[in-house]
């Protein structure tokens, strides 16, 4: 009979399937519910595991950088590259002085042209200047030739050492592989650095002394012979003369340095770290010496981020206050999803927009006649700090807006009502009550926006101009029209072309570690702000 069957099933069901049955299947002493619970709790650890794995792999690849960097610095001294670079600095300074003269001439030509002077007249007016530049270059020719000689000798020592080291390694590999004959065929040259250094010094020190002396003499007579009284460039040339006199007196200290140089002066290990942190040059894959200094990259990242925040903070916070306190419901319903939508514009699309539209737009803007009064306009570079900064501002705005709006929302309603009941108007309530009460949240919103901006890659890679130099801050505010390179952009640019395990590869991982730590730090500080200064209702 069907009815009894139904009844039987009903009273059997809870017994067999779930309820309180003591004789459940157990595995390792755990019931099925407990197993499920541990399974879930295990997956909750994913975030921690991933963070640990990121830390581990980045450090695993990056940790080797400092010993390798130390070796590279040691070789720089041992092979005498350092010795040559003392003299190179002297010659570079001469070249930059010559460049100054060139720029001066160009500048004056443009000015004269603007004043409506003819070509022949300009030439005759600037002839002494041009003569000075030619003679000044002439004075440096001998030094340049000597420098080339020194460079090739030192580079030769370095190359021989590198080759012999490579051979040593491959010989060891061959012996390990049991191929004794092939291993014996490899010649390994033992470089006697002491002898080479002695050779370098005895060959070039007297020559350098002689060349420097003639250079100084030539320059002195040149300066004395140049008469620029009552010309339009008198002030500049006089300044140039003063600089050159100072430059000449520096020759002695260069000689002293070269005299005192020894190849076996130990390179302390901390230098591999300090040279990385304070180095101002990032030069890779050079035949001479690779330099890994984070300063230009860090400054690049920082300037771009600061420009972005200067634009994004007023906009984001202002919009959050407007939407939270002032706007009508309809306006809120339109603006909030719109700004959230801005957050998901892919960064590469923004970068592309920067290249195709914004960069050109800014340059055209600076070329307008009505903007000509601004010093430094029109700008030369289409891709620069401001282009990248403006686009990054657009990326930072959504996070700043959303988190600030949340913070304003979290202010207890009673605060606002109390303020109104005391007769304050809306602006007073906002500026005296709402914003101070949510300040910690707004600050953490700004920090999170900063974190987003400093870690952004594609926009800066495409738009920041990628020039590996510290921007010239003497230009004042105009510095924002100079191209820079950033930490993120450099990593993305160089990773595809590095050899695994090379010094450059490891340097890029150290950069990634720096980025990782910066982002963790920013997050941590933001959370401290939220937690510590959270207003408690009570």
């Amino acid at each position: 009979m069907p009815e009894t069957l139904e009844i039987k099933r009903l009273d059997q069901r809870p017994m067999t399937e779930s309820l309180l049955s003591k004789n459940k299947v157990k595995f390792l002493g755990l019931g099925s519910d407990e197993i499920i619970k541990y399974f879930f709790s295990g997956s909750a650890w994913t975030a921690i595991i991933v963070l640990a794995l990121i830390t581990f792999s980045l450090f695993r690849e990056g940790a080797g950088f400092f010993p390798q960097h130390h070796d590279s610095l040691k070789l720089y001294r041992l092979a005498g590259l350092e010795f040559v670079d003392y003299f190179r600095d002297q010659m570079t300074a001469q070249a930059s002085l010559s460049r100054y003269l060139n720029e001066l001439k160009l500048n004056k030509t443009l000015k004269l042209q603007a004043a409506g002077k003819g070509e022949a007249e300009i030439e005759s007016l600037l002839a002494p200047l041009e003569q000075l530049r030619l003679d000044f270059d002439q004075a440096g020719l001998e030094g340049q030739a000597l420098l080339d000689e020194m460079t090739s000798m030192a580079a030769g020592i370095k190359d021989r050492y590198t080759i012999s080291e490579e051979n040593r390694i491959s010989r060891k590999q061959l012996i390990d592989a049991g191929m004794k004959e092939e291993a014996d065929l490899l010649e390994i040259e033992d470089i006697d650095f002491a002898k080479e250094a002695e050779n370098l010094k005895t060959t070039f020190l007297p020559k350098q002394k002689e060349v420097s002396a003639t250079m100084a003499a030539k320059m002195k007579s040149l300066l004395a012979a140049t008469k620029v009284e009552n010309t339009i460039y008198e002030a500049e040339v006089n300044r140039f003369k003063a600089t050159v006199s100072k430059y000449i007196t520096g020759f002695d200290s260069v000689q002293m340095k070269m005299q005192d140089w020894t190849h076996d002066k130990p390179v302390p290990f901390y230098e591999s770290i300090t040279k990385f942190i304070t180095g101002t040059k990032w030069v890779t894959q050079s035949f001479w010496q690779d330099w890994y200094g984070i300063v230009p990259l860090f400054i690049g990242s920082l300037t771009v981020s600061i420009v972005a925040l200067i634009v994004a903070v007023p906009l984001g916070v202002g919009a959050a206050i407007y939407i939270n306190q002032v706007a009508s419901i309809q306006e809120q319903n339109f603006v909030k999803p719109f700004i959230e939508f801005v957050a998901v514009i892919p960064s590469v699309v923004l970068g592309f927009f920067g290249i195709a539209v914004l960069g050109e737009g800014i340059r055209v803007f600076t070329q307008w006649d009505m903007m000509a009064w601004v010093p430094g306009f029109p700008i030369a570079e289409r891709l620069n700090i401001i282009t990248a900064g403006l686009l990054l501002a657009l990326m930072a705005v959504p996070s700043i807006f959303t988190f600030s709006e949340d913070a304003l929302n979290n202010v207890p309603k009673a605060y606002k009502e109390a303020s109104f009941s005391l007769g304050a108007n809306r602006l007073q309530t906002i500026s005296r009550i709402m914003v101070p009460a949510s300040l910690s949240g707004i600050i953490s919103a700004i920090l999170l926006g900063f974190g987003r901006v400093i870690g952004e890659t594609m926009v800066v890679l495409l738009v920041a101009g990628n020039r590996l130099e510290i921007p010239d801050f003497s230009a004042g505010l105009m510095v924002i029209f100079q191209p820079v390179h950033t930490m993120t952009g450099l990593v993305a640019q160089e990773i595809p072309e590095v050899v695994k395990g090379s010094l450059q590869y490891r340097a890029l991982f150290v950069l990634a570690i720096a980025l990782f730590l910066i982002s963790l730090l920013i997050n941590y500080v933001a959370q401290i702000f939220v937690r510590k200064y959270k207003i408690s209702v009570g």
Partner: protein
Amino acid sequence: MQNKSNNPFLKVSTPAKRQETAFFWLFRIATYIIIAAAGYIFFDIAYKGVGVIFQLKAPFVNVPFLTEWPETLDIFKLPANQDMKMEVSQYARMTYENPKVNFVEKGTLEMVIFKSPEGVMKKVLPEQKEAFDADPISHGWSVLSERAVMQVFQLKEVSEIKIGNTLYRSLVDDNEGVPPLEHKTQVYAAGGIYPAIVGTVLLVVGSMIIALTLGVLCATYLSEYSRSGPIINFIRLSIMNLAGVPSIVFGMWGYAMFVLLFGWNVSLMAGWFTLAFMVLPIVITGSEESLRAVPQGFREGSLALGASKWQTIYKNVLPYALPGILTSSIMGIARIAGETAAIMFTASFVVRDELPWQVKHAGEFFFNGVMALPYHIFVVSARVPQNVYTEKSSMARHSSSWSSF
């Protein structure tokens, strides 16, 4: 009638009120600057791109752009009043792509196509067939087609023609002795973005499966099982920190771990895992929110009826949270679809000639890189700063991020 100044409801302009209005206008302007800037970018890209994706003739969508491989564009001029020949289908394609050029059709011509063992093709007129066959050059060649129909055409005046590289090469091959004039090329300016779309879809699907599995498990634990304590706080802290890690660091990690340490090379798998872990915090946060939105009474009712914890979650919590979880994961999809830095050394190739599934072994599907839209945009905009195509691909990218909404 009351005196105006005595009306208590009349708006009176005081300095404080004027200040208030001024400040509110500042805030309003800030809001609308954001909207205008973002709106301008949308408008600019849509305006320039819509002409590429859509067209006025049927089928109203630019099918070749969505179904072909990226190609070099050849721009050249052809002499006027000169007989040229081209295969009929190719000729149709050329006239379709150059609607403004004045082509004059001179009838059709049948030719014999020879094919060498190496795959080189050669078209010969029927009367030359015997001669070519006897030629020692054609040793080992076979006849591929006896009657290939060629279109013979002329140009009314010298005009500029733009076609993709494949068409251009066959045009040059078929018309020996008629050299094109003023030949220029533009990299990636012809063809379409089909493989990039396919690659992006694969990357999104695979990494979302991984991220949703892990993310929902983690969120379920956090919202259903966990009680607040130091360990849970630590887990939450790590999730928040993971959300703040820059995508390039994820890329470096994926490169160091999946590509090099695990030896997966630049591959779909490496990209899946890198992207999945990158998007995990978004998925966890979204899923937890939707799990918490399920009323507590649902759980209590189920438990009161004697269901176990797992049965409660499985039958009475997850089904109601699922729509919310999926909605919130759209945010993650949008993030993955547009991500470049994390895939540029882990998953994406500049060019790949086959589709990801055109492989000999199943393993190759997983351990080969793919083309992806965001990386394609990067390659195009980094190499050729301004050409037609950058606008095209950017539009496609954008329509894909629209479609993910």
